C-alpha cells in the first residue's frame, strides 16, 4: 500500500493501489437536474476517479457541498451516476448485489422507531439472507459489541441519541461486512462513544476489512485513516497516505485541508 501522496491539479486519473480494489470509481460525474424553471442543473461531482484497496481505512474528506455525499449516494445505489462508473468488489453499484458485503452507517440515526433493537437487527439480517441460527448469534455479538444487550427488547423510540447511534453501528455490522461505509460516524457521540467507534474501526482493520470513512473531524481522520482523498467543488484535489501528506506539506492535516479548499485565514480585527 505504498501510494505516493498525490496532489491532483489537472486531469484526474485512476490511482493505482497495491491490494485489489474494493471500491473503484472511474470518471464519475453526478449532475442534478434543475429544480425549477430558470434554474441551471448542478454539477456535484466532476470526473472523480479513485480506488480504495482492500484492508485500508480510507478517509473521504471535503467541505460541505464538495460532492462527498453525492459520491457516497452513487456508491450506495441511492442515485445512478450521470456519467462514469463505480463498482464495489467488482460489481456495478447499480446492481443491489454489490451491497451484499457492505455495512453502512448514516450520519444521523434513521431507524424504525416502532421496532426493538433485536427486531431491527433481525429485519436487516434477513435482508442479507443470513440463516436463522447464524443470525441469532450475530445479533448477540453485535449487541454485545455496542453494549446494547440490556436494552435489546426496548423500542428504539425510547433510546437516547447515543444509544441510537450505537444501534446504527450494530446494524452496519450485522452482516459481518467486508466494506464498512461510515458517514460522520462519531457525530453526536460523547468522548467515550467516539473512542468506542475508533476501537471498532481498528478492530475491523486488523480483521482485514475495508473502511470508507467520511468525517469533518480531521484529528480523528489523522488517527484512524491509512489514506485520504480531499475533494472540493466536485473534483479530487489530493489523494495519498496521511503520513506522507503531513511529511510532504510540513503541516498537520487540518492546515493541509484548509489550504486545499482555498481558505484564507482572516487577521483578527
Amino acid at each position, binding site marked *: 500500500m505504498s501510494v505516493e501522496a498525490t496532489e491532483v491539479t489537472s486531469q484526474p486519473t485512476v490511482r493505482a493501489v497495491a491490494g485489489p480494489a474494493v471500491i473503484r470509481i472511474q470518471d464519475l460525474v453526478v449532475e442534478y437536474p434543475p429544480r425549477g424553471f430558470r434554474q441551471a442543473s448542478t454539477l456535484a461531482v466532476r470526473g472523480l476517479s479513485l480506488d480504495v484497496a482492500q484492508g485500508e481505512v480510507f478517509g473521504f474528506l471535503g467541505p460541505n457541498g464538495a460532492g462527498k455525499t453525492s459520491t457516497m449516494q452513487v456508491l450506495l445505489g441511492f442515485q445512478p451516476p450521470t456519467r462514469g462508473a463505480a463498482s464495489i468488489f467488482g460489481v456495478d453499484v447499480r446492481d443491489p448485489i454489490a451491497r451484499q458485503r457492505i455495512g453502512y452507517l448514516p450520519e444521523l440515526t434513521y431507524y424504525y422507531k416502532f*421496532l426493538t433493537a433485536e427486531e431491527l437487527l433481525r429485519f436487516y439480517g434477513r*435482508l442479507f439472507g443470513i440463516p436463522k441460527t447464524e443470525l441469532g448469534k450475530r445479533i448477540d455479538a453485535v449487541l454485545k459489541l455496542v453494549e446494547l444487550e440490556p436494552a435489546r427488547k426496548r423500542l428504539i423510540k425510547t433510546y437516547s441519541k447515543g444509544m441510537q447511534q450505537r444501534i446504527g453501528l450494530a446494524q452496519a455490522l450485522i452482516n459481518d461486512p467486508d466494506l464498512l461505509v461510515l458517514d460522520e460516524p462519531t457525530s453526536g457521540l460523547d468522548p467515550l462513544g467516539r473512542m468506542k467507534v475508533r476501537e471498532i474501526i481498528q478492530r475491523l482493520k486488523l480483521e482485514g476489512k475495508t473502511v470508507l470513512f467520511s468525517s469533518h473531524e480531521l484529528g480523528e481522520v489523522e488517527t484512524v485513516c491509512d489514506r485520504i482523498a480531499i475533494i472540493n467543488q466536485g473534483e479530487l484535489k489530493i489523494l495519498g497516505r496521511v503520513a506522507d501528506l503531513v511529511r510532504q506539506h510540513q503541516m498537520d492535516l487540518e492546515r493541509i485541508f484548509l489550504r486545499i479548499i482555498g481558505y484564507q485565514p482572516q487577521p483578527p480585527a
Partner: protein
Amino acid sequence: MNTVFCLAGIVIKELYRRKDFYVLFVVTALITLLMGSVNFFHEEKIVRYIKDICLLLIWVSSLVIAIATTARQIPAERESRTIFPLLAKPVSRGQLIAGKFVGCWLASGIALLVFYLFFAIVVGAKEGHLPVGQYVQAFWMQWSMLAIIISLVLLGSVVFTAPSSNVTISFAAALSILILGGHLHRLAALQPHLLGMLLSALYFLIPHLEWFYAVRERLIFDQGLLAWGDVTLATAYAAAYVGLSLCATWLLFRRKILTM
C-alpha cells in the same frame, strides 16, 4: 421472495403497533352495537339495517386503513430517512415496491378479516344462521378491491413526496372512482363529441371499483352467492390492474434520485 416478505412483515408490524386500527375497530364495533341495540323503526327484524350500517362502516374503515397505511409507506421512509439504511442493503427498488404492496395488502386483509369476523358474530347472533360462502365471497371481493386501491396509492406515493398530501389525494381519488366511476359512460353520452370521448376514455382507464362494491348489497339483501366464474373474472381484473400499477410505480421509482 424472502426479501419481499421480510419488507412486508415490517409493514404489518407497523400497523399493529400503531393505534389507527384499534381506534377504527372500536368505533365500528361501538356504532354497530349501539345502532343494533336501538329499534328505531319498531321493526322486529332489524338485522338488514344492522348489516347495512356495519358493512358501510367496514368499507369505510378498511379504506381508511388501506389508504392511510399505504400512502405513508414510501413518503414516510423518505421523510424519516429510514429508506437510506434500507436501500444500502441488497434490496432492489422493485423488491421494495413489491414488499410494500404485499405488506399493505396483507395488513389490510388482516384488519378486514377482524372486521368481518365481528360482523359475522353480530349478524349471526341476530339471524341465527351464517351463510359462510357469501361472507367468504364478500371478504375476497373487498380484499381484491383493496389490492387495486393499494397499488394506486403506492403509485401516488412515488409522485407525491409528503405523506399527508398523498393520503388526502388518494382518499379523494378512491372515493370519486368508487362513487362516480360507474356513471362516467352515461355522462359521456350526454356531452359534446370531444368531452364525451375524453370521459369515455377516462371510464375505460379508471378501475371499476363499483363491480366489487356490488357484493355488499347481495350480502345485505341475502341475494345468495355470486357465480364463482364472475368472482374469478373480477379477481383477474384486479390482478391485471395491480400488475399495471406496480409496473408504473417501479418505472417511476427505479431511477429516482434519493437525496440524503
